[in-house]
Structure formats: structure tokens, C-alpha cells
């Protein structure tokens, strides 16, 4: 491969000997193709040092089958658009090295689970983001531009809770990894609930009571069984399980408060 590979190698955080021998010169790649019920299609792709799964998919589209559909944008783990199921596990393909997930040189790529497939490796993310809206995932300001900026002490409990959960980029890996989403289609899912938790801890927000009502209950935080697949798989190392537990605590407390 060309420049793309060199770049991906340069961005790698992993330490690996430069001369690490490649187990085989070819990768055996099986990819989900939609249309007529869907099927798995096999490709053979040359291995390269520091090759990412996204590199593999791109190589196939450029050299073997231009009709292969997949989604990506930044290639550096910032945009959250390239997530797929790689050998059974939801991952960002741009930050997943082939060496790490396919030591035997075999890759099986499928679209993210728990979401409708548009074509090949591309999912319809509408439902995922609709649930952010349903969880009232937007900040509701209480101040105007004429008010002085709010002072939120960085060491305050709320601020620390929000900070711990704020770095989500909405890639959908947690949502695709969650069994509860598979079992309860109405369940808001880890990402939307994690987002709600950051806003419940934002002292400037004006919709915290309404948001708690939107995210509590059997379609919200109370459906979570704390299996922690979301926390296990989150590429940003966030802990949606902890955020959801926080929402359960808030909801339980509000049951004993008159005004909520």
C-alpha cells in the first residue's frame, strides 16, 4: 500500500519491531455484501506493515470492487464514522491494526450490529441519533449573552462526572455492542444515556428535570443490566455503564423529592 499505510503507521501508538515478520503475504478477508438477502464475499488482500482494517477495505474498493460501500472520513479516530464489526467485535476500523485483530490473517467484516443496513458495511445511524434527541441530548441554556460566563469549578463533583463522560464522538460502537439494545428495541442505549448524564451534571442546563424523566424507566437507564459491553468496547475508554448507574442514582433520589 501507499501513503495511507505510512500515515497510519506513523500514528500508531503501539510499539512493534520494525522488522516484524508478516505471517503471510496475503490476508483472507470476508465481507458482508447486501442485496438479495445478503451474503459474505471473499477477497484476498496483500498484507502491509502497520496496516489498519480501514486500509484493507479501501484497498478492496480501489483494486478489487469499486462498488463496495463503507463509511469513513477522518482516518485518525476523530470523526467516529468508520465503525464496523471486525471479527465479531465492533471497532473503529481506522484505529484497528490488522496484526492485533487477525494474527492468523483472516478478517471478517460486517456492518455494525443493532442498526439497519443501508448497503454492505454502511448502517443507517438515524435511529441511533434519534435516541440522542429522545434522551434530550441537547444543552438547554438558562443564561443570555448579557449574563456573565458561568463559573463551574473544575474540581466540583458535577464537573468531574461530566468530564469523565464528555469525550464521546458518537461512533455507535457501544450501541452495536449492547445486548439490551438487541433485546429491547426502544432502549435508548449507552451513548444517548451517557450524553444525558453529562447534561444532568451541567449546572448551567435548564432541562435537567425533564431530561431525567425522558431517560428513566424501562426504555432508559433502568433497562441497563450493567453488563458493561459498552464500557469494554468504547474506543475512547469511556464508561457509559458508570454514567447509566449515575442516572439510576439520580432517578432513585428524585423519587423521594417532592418537586421532581
Amino acid at each position, binding site marked *: 500500500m501507499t501513503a495511507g499505510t505510512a500515515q497510519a503507521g506513523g500514528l500508531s501508538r503501539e510499539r512493534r519491531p520494525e522488522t516484524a515478520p508478516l505471517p503471510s503475504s496475503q490476508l483472507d478477508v470476508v465481507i458482508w455484501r447486501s442485496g438479495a438477502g445478503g451474503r459474505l464475499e471473499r477477497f484476498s488482500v496483500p498484507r502491509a506493515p502497520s496496516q489498519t482494517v480501514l486500509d484493507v477495505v479501501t484497498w478492496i474498493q480501489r483494486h478489487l470492487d469499486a462498488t463496495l460501500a463503507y463509511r469513513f472520513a477522518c482516518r485518525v479516530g476523530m470523526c467516529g464514522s468508520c465503525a464496523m464489526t471486525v471479527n465479531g467485535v465492533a471497532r473503529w476500523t481506522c484505529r484497528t491494526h490488522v496484526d492485533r485483530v487477525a494474527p492468523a490473517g483472516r478478517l471478517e467484516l460486517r456492518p455494525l450490529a443493532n442498526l*439497519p443496513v443501508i448497503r454492505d458495511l454502511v448502517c*443507517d445511524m438515524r*435511529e441511533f441519533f*434519534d*435516541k440522542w434527541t*429522545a434522551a434530550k441530548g441537547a444543552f438547554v441554556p438558562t443564561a443570555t449573552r448579557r449574563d456573565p460566563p458561568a463559573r463551574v469549578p473544575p474540581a466540583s463533583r458535577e464537573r468531574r462526572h461530566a468530564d469523565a463522560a464528555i469525550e464521546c464522538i458518537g461512533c455507535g460502537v457501544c450501541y452495536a455492542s449492547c445486548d*439490551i439494545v438487541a*433485546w*429491547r*428495541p*426502544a*432502549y*435508548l442505549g449507552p451513548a444517548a444515556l451517557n450524553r444525558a448524564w453529562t447534561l444532568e451534571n451541567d449546572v448551567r442546563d435548564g432541562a435537567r428535570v425533564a431530561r431525567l*424523566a*425522558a431517560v*428513566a*424507566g*424501562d*426504555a*432508559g437507564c*433502568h*433497562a441497563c443490566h450493567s453488563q458493561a459491553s459498552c464500557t469494554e468496547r468504547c474506543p475512547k475508554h469511556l464508561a457509559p455503564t458508570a454514567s447509566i448507574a449515575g442516572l*439510576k442514582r439520580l*432517578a*432513585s433520589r*428524585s*423519587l423521594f423529592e417532592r418537586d421532581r
Partner: protein
Amino acid sequence: MRTDRPARGSAHWRVDAWLWLLQRASAAVLAVCVAVHLATIFYAVHAGLTAQTILGRMHASIAWPAFYVLFVVAAAVHAPIGLRAVAAEWLGFGGRRADLVAAAIGIALLALGLRAVWALAR
């Protein structure tokens, strides 16, 4: 495409939240009750207590019947809430029907359990 949306009134989440809380609280009670229950069985078997002796002890003190009433109530609260979730998630059997079935199971557990305690204690 899935069409079901999270739909709830302002009161409905409170019911879910209460059920969740009750299930956790009853689990905490059950953890203690099950431990005491098992320890007592081990003790009774090792000490060679007969059924007659055990019945005698149940009659001798209000503490044992009271303990088992608490045990029965905790189980009757805990089990149906869990079964309701299992029905919704694994059997595709949710909503009002699941609520009613779970409530019936809870009442049955309570009635059978209390009847057993009454039979031993009276």
C-alpha cells in the same frame, strides 16, 4: 426499520424507577436471608436435628417465623420484577400483559410462602 419509540408519560418512569429500586432493595434482603437460611440448614443437618426438633424451635420463638415472613415477602417482590424483564427481553412478551402475569406470580409466591410459614409456626 424499527418504529417503536421510547414513549412514556411523566408518571410512568416513576413506576419503572420504583420497581427497579424495590428489586435492588429486596435483593439486599434476600442476600442476608438466603445466607442465614443455608447456614441454618447446614447446622441442622450436621447437628442431626430431627424434623420434630426443628418444628419445636419454630414454635418456640417469634423470631424464626418473622424471619421467614420477611424472606417470603422479599422473594415475592424480587422474582416477579425480574421475570417481567426476562419476558420483555427474551420472550417478546412485554407491556400490560407481562405486568399482569408478573403481578399474579408475585401474589402466588406471597400466598404460598406465607401459607408455608403459617403451617410451620402455628
